C-alpha cells in the first residue's frame, strides 16, 4: 500500500499562513458526522418530541443552533436541520439518528461537507468582505445560523460562544469540493490581519 490511500487533510497542500500576526485563526473541523434532517409534512410535532427525548434538546424553529452532549443541531430552512456529531463515527446516522426516520427524511452527508472554525479578533472584519450579511456583534449572536453565499459558493455559518479570550468564533460549512476555494478566499481576506491555519480541533 502506498501513502496514496492514507487519509489526509483536505488543506494539507495549501499555504498555512498569510501576513503577520494572528488576527484570524482557521481550524479544521475534521471527523464530524453530519446529516440533513427534513421533517415529514405532518410529523413535525412527533419529530420534535422524539428528538427532545433522545437528545435533550428542542429542535430550533428558526435559524438557530443548539448543542448538547456532543451533538449540535442547526436550523437551515423551515422544518430542515443540519445535525452534527462530534467524534460520532460512522454509526451516528445509522445508529443514533435512525429512530428519527419515521418522522423525517434523513441523509448522511459527513463526507459532503468541510467545516472550518474561525477565531480571532478580526474574524468579523475578514468575513465582512466576503458575505452579504450583517455580522455585527448584536445582529449575528452566539447560536445564530445563516446560509448565504461567499464568492458564489453556498455556505452555512454559525456563531459559537465567544472564546475565553473574548474573541468571536464562527464556523463555516461548505460543500467539500469548494473547501480549498473557500479557504483561499478566507486566507486572502485575512492577510492584512495575519492569518494562520491549525489542524483539526476537538470540541
Amino acid at each position: 500500500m502506498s501513502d496514496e490511500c492514507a487519509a489526509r487533510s483536505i488543506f494539507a497542500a495549501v499555504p498555512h499562513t498569510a501576513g503577520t500576526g494572528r488576527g484570524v485563526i482557521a481550524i479544521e473541523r475534521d471527523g464530524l458526522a453530519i446529516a440533513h434532517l427534513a421533517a415529514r409534512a405532518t410529523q413535525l410535532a412527533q419529530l420534535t418530541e422524539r428528538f427532545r427525548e433522545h437528545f435533550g434538546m428542542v429542535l430550533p424553529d428558526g435559524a438557530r443552533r443548539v448543542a448538547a452532549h456532543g451533538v449540535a443541531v442547526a436550523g437551515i430552512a423551515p422544518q430542515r436541520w443540519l445535525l452534527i456529531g462530534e467524534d460520532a463515527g460512522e454509526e451516528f446516522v445509522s445508529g443514533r439518528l435512525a429512530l428519527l426516520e419515521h418522522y423525517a427524511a434523513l441523509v448522511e452527508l459527513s463526507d459532503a461537507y468541510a467545516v472550518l472554525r474561525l477565531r480571532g479578533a478580526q474574524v468579523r472584519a475578514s468575513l465582512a468582505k466576503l458575505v452579504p450579511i450583517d455580522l455585527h456583534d448584536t445582529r449575528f449572536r452566539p447560536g445564530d445560523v445563516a446560509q448565504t453565499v461567499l464568492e458564489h459558493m453556498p455556505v452555512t455559518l454559525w456563531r459559537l460562544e465567544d472564546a475565553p479570550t473574548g474573541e468571536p468564533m464562527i464556523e463555516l460549512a461548505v460543500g467539500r469540493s469548494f473547501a480549498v476555494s473557500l479557504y483561499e478566499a478566507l486566507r486572502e481576506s485575512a492577510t492584512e490581519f495575519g492569518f494562520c491555519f491549525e489542524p483539526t480541533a476537538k470540541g
Partner: protein
Amino acid sequence: MRINCPFCGERDLSEFSYLGDADSAKAIASAAQSEREQIDAVYLRANPAGVHRELWYHAFGCGSWLNVTRDTRTHEIFAVQLSRERTP
C-alpha cells in the same frame, strides 16, 4: 433592494432569483382547457407597473419559495410570506 425572508431575515437581492407573477399559478394548465386557455396558463404572466405579488426563490439562503408583494415602480415591499404558507 433587500427582501426580508421569513426564515433568514433581511437579505441582499443577490441571494434571490426571480420567477414572476405569483398568482398565475392558479390557472394551471389542464387537459380540460381549450388550446387557447392552455397557452394562456403556461405563458401569460401579469407584469404590472405597480403593486404586484410575485415569486422569489431564496437560492443562496434557506431555499424557500417566497410570495413577495412589491411595487414594481419603487421596489417598496409590503409583505413577504413563505409560499408553503400561502394564503389565497
